[in-house]
């Protein structure tokens, strides 16, 4: 007979339980009560909602329709006020209802420090959507916010409010931020990063009272300092919500006590999520709740299963603050530390070792290898053998950097080889053991290297190491005669070993020439710029003449000059200035280019700085017509004039050009924006093309109209201009980070596959991270090279004039 299951709380834990039950078609009639007036959403994404990167709609996981389709009866906005475990009923304002099985999933309640003024209006906790909306509403008036608590939640709240324009101060009782997850050094770096975005941090700050008549006006600290405040966010901690369980006389310690099957002291009542306690342990992060949810579902279906807590790791969801911590990193007898710092880049890594294993890790600034370290902690791997090079991460194991095979041989079995598909070395070895002997077979059996392909070299090396002579390594084309390494190998080395200068690359990768050649140097220069935009200084001598002199060289050694015309728009004044410059420097040819710009052809090298200065003075900057970077964004006239236009295509083109200009890319980058599918800007044969339609923006990539003629392929359609901008930034950044130098987007796309690129963009978090990294690089690159070179005009002149001597 169908049993009746009542669930209290529609949170992240119970959401998973329901999914498992419905998937397994468990024989239950389910009723759900939730105090919040809504169903389940991804609570951990409240921070992006607060900072404005996401909306509530983006984070809903189960909406009313979902419950209805799945036959779950819902009472949203309804508190359960009592449980009678003898009568097997629950009580709410809607009356009492009988259950056969009950699931308590009430989560946690924010802890409120019992100071005077805690009940004033304007004191907000940070737990649910209502809190988030209250903060957003308060921030609209601007003003000052004081956040009490410098832990994960407090800092995410602080960053979000600062993002929304409030003047934010964080008060933290302890000596450094996030003291439970970070050590002092990492706490310091985090603090510095937050202060850079204008957030004031006060440590050792204890709140004495919250001041104000009927709404918050300030915060009084021990020591009698007063901070003005329009809102106060209280984020000092949470405690399991156990009131119902206590009232029902279930066994409750700090949380509702459960066994490994997630049953409370009454076997017909189960509990899951933040409200539970198992063997003295509480659970405040999502990963263990999901494991618990699986066990709850099994128990309810009468199948055996046990919940075992695992090691947890923490990350902070504040864009630009890259931190990771896991395990135990307190100092102690018998423990040793390995520390790596790069002060200039704000990178800090620390590993704590005990008995040959890593038991804790803290990383700040560069967390790329965090998964690998986390794996070593979780599996208690003995790392004594690789102790020397451990801190540099997986790519460096074995030390013999110049012999990639040795390094690969030294990798542990769970070292991740293929990041896209999460395939580790062991899985590849297993595939080899059952008969895979080449790359194709590995791809087919494990999916490794089947996505973006940057790990192909590594997979081959695993093959070579495992099969020995039986495997003939395909001779991958090296960059040039200076090295045996491929572009991909070198890119990997640059990232994993943090090589930040050309000599460092030559050294670490064993270049056979003293300083490279005209083939590898421009590529390395680009890779270094792309990977370390804030640290690496461009090397003009490794650039082809066009980029070194910011003009296109012509067959007779003269140059052509193309000023930028944003989105193809110009003015009579600009045209006059161009005409004047053409006259003054005796420009033989003035031509309109294929990308809607004006080209002044035949300018003498020595005259370049002078003509640039004249154009600069008229308000124009370099059009980068010479660069492996953004060239032009071609546009149609769009809604302003065209009777078919659906969106402001010219405006979007200008916006894109202003965002992307100056960016270095593996090859030239051309965009087009058309206002409707008539496509007057020929956007579908550009590297990135946008077709505006009534419902939004179709973004397609991989077009070309050069030696190869290609039509773009649809990447994504989005509804708003903001999304379109983000997608384009993200795809450009992905291209920068992954493509081989001199591969246009379509070539890169052929290698990695359009689907892989789509995945990069569809994953919203990844998309935002890519766009954020793009912005970081652009903070350095978005400038006018002409203006800069005008100041060194003398370098465009001969160093000496010996014409007089010769006349003697």
């Amino acid at each position, binding site marked *: 007979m169908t049993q009746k299951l009542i669930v209290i709380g529609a949170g992240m834990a119970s959401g998973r339980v329901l999914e498992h039950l419905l998937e397994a078609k468990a024989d239950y009639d389910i009723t759900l009560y939730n105090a919040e007036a809504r169903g389940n959403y991804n609570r951990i994404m409240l921070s992006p909602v607060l900072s404005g990167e996401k909306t509530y709609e983006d984070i809903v996981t189960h909406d009313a329709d979902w419950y209805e389709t799945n036959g779950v009866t819902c009472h949203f906005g309804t508190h359960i006020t009592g449980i009678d475990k003898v009568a097997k009923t629950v009580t709410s304002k809607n009356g009492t209802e009988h259950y056969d099985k009950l699931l308590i999933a009430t989560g946690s309640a924010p802890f409120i420090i019992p100071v005077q003024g805690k009940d004033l209006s304007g004191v907000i906790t940070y737990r649910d959507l209502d809190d988030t909306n209250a903060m957003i509403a308060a921030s609209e008036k601007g003003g000052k916010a004081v956040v009490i608590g410098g832990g994960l939640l407090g800092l995410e709240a602080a960053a979000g409010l600062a993002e929304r324009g409030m003047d934010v101060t964080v008060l933290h009782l302890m000596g450094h931020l996030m003291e439970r997850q970070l050590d002092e050094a990492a706490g310091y770096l985090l603090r510095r990063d937050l202060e850079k975005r204008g957030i004031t941090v006060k440590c050792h700050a204890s709140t004495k009272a919250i001041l104000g008549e009927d709404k918050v006006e300030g915060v009084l600290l021990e020591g009698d300092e007063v901070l003005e405040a329009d809102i106060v966010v209280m984020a000092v901690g949470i405690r399991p919500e156990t009131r119902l369980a206590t009232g029902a006389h279930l066994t409750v310690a700090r949380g509702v006590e459960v066994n490994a099957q997630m049953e409370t002291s009454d076997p017909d009542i189960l509990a899951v999520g933040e409200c539970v306690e198992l063997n003295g342990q509480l659970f405040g992060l999502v990963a263990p709740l999901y494991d618990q949810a699986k066990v709850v579902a099994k128990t309810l279906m009468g199948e055996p299963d046990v919940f075992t807590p695992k090691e947890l790791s923490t990350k902070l969801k504040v864009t630009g603050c890259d931190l990771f911590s896991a395990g135990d990193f307190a100092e102690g007898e018998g423990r040793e530390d390995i520390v790596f710092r790069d002060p200039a880049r704000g990178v800090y890594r620390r590993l704590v070792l005990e008995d040959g294993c890593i038991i804790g890790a803290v990383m700040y600034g560069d967390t790329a290898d965090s998964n690998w370290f986390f794996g070593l902690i979780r599996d208690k791997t003995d790392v004594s053998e690789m102790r020397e090079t451990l801190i540099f991460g997986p790519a460096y194991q074995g030390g013999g950097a110049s012999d990639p095979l040795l390094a690969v041989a030294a990798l542990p079995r769970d070292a991740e080889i293929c990041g896209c598909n999460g395939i580790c070395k062991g899985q590849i070895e297993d595939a080899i053991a059952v008969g895979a002997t080449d790359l194709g077979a590995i791809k087919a059996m494990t999916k490794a290297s089947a996505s973006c392909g940057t790990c192909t070299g590594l997979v081959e090396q695993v093959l070579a190491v495992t099969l020995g002579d039986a495997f003939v390594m395909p001779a991958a084309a090296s960059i040039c005669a200076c090295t045996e390494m491929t572009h991909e190998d070198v890119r990997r080395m640059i990232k994993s070993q943090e090589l930040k200068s050309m000599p460092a690359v030559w050294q670490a990768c064993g270049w056979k*020439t*003293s*300083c*490279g*050649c*005209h083939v590898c*140097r*421009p590529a390395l220069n680009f890779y270094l710029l792309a990977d370390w935009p804030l640290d690496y200084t461009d090397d*003009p*001598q*490794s*650039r*082809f*003449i066009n980029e*070194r*002199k910011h003009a296109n*060289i012509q*067959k007779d*050694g003269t140059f052509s000059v193309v000023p930028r015309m944003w989105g193809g728009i110009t003015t009579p004044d600009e045209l006059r200035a161009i005409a004047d410059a053409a006259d003054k420097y005796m420009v033989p040819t003035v031509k309109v280019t294929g990308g809607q710009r004006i080209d002044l052809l035949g300018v003498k*090298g020595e005259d370049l700085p002078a003509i640039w200065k004249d154009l600069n003075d008229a308000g124009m900057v370099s059009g980068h017509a010479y660069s492996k970077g953004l060239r032009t964004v071609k546009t149609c006239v769009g809604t302003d004039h065209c009777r078919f236009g659906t969106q402001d295509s010219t405006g979007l083109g200008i916006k894109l050009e202003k965002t992307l200009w100056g960016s270095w890319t593996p090859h030239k980058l051309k965009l087009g924006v058309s206002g409707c599918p008539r496509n007057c800007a020929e956007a579908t044969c550009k590297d990135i093309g946008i077709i505006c339609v009534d419902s939004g923006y179709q973004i397609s990539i991989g077009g070309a109209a050069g030696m190869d003629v290609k039509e773009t392929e649809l990447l994504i359609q989005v509804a708003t201009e903001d999304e379109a901008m983000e997608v384009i930034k993200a795809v450009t950044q992905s291209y920068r980070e992954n493509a081989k130098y001199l591969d246009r987007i379509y070539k890169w796309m052929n290698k990695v596959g359009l689907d892989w690129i789509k995945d990069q963009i569809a994953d919203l978090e990844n998309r935002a991270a890519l766009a954020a990294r793009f912005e970081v690089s652009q903070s350095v690159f978005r400038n006018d090279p002409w203006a800069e070179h005008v100041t060194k005009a003398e*370098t465009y002149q*001969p*160093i*000496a*004039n*010996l*014409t007089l*001597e*010769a*006349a003697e």
Partner: protein
Amino acid sequence: MTNWIDISPLDAVPQRGARLVKTAHGCVAIFRTGADEVFALDNACPHKNGPLAEGIVHGNSVTCPLHNWVISLETGLVQGPDEGKVATYPARVEAGRILLDAEFLSQRAVA
């Protein structure tokens, strides 16, 4: 006896770069390598007169900016499969200054 003329400070030419010296018979390119050696060559590629001073300097060679011929700075000989030669002139560095052999002007005059 060679008669050296002082052209400029070494620093006026970037490492792995070049600058021009104007003469009555066209331009001569002064190259400076990564190891701070200097070389003087006619600024014209034997292929199609590409301006060698605008090329990428690597080791003791320069790659022509127009079609990537590689030319030895020491001998002026075109490397690899292509053939040809560029005129070279004696040059050296002394006390941080670049010196050219005055003789080269007369050489160029007859050339």
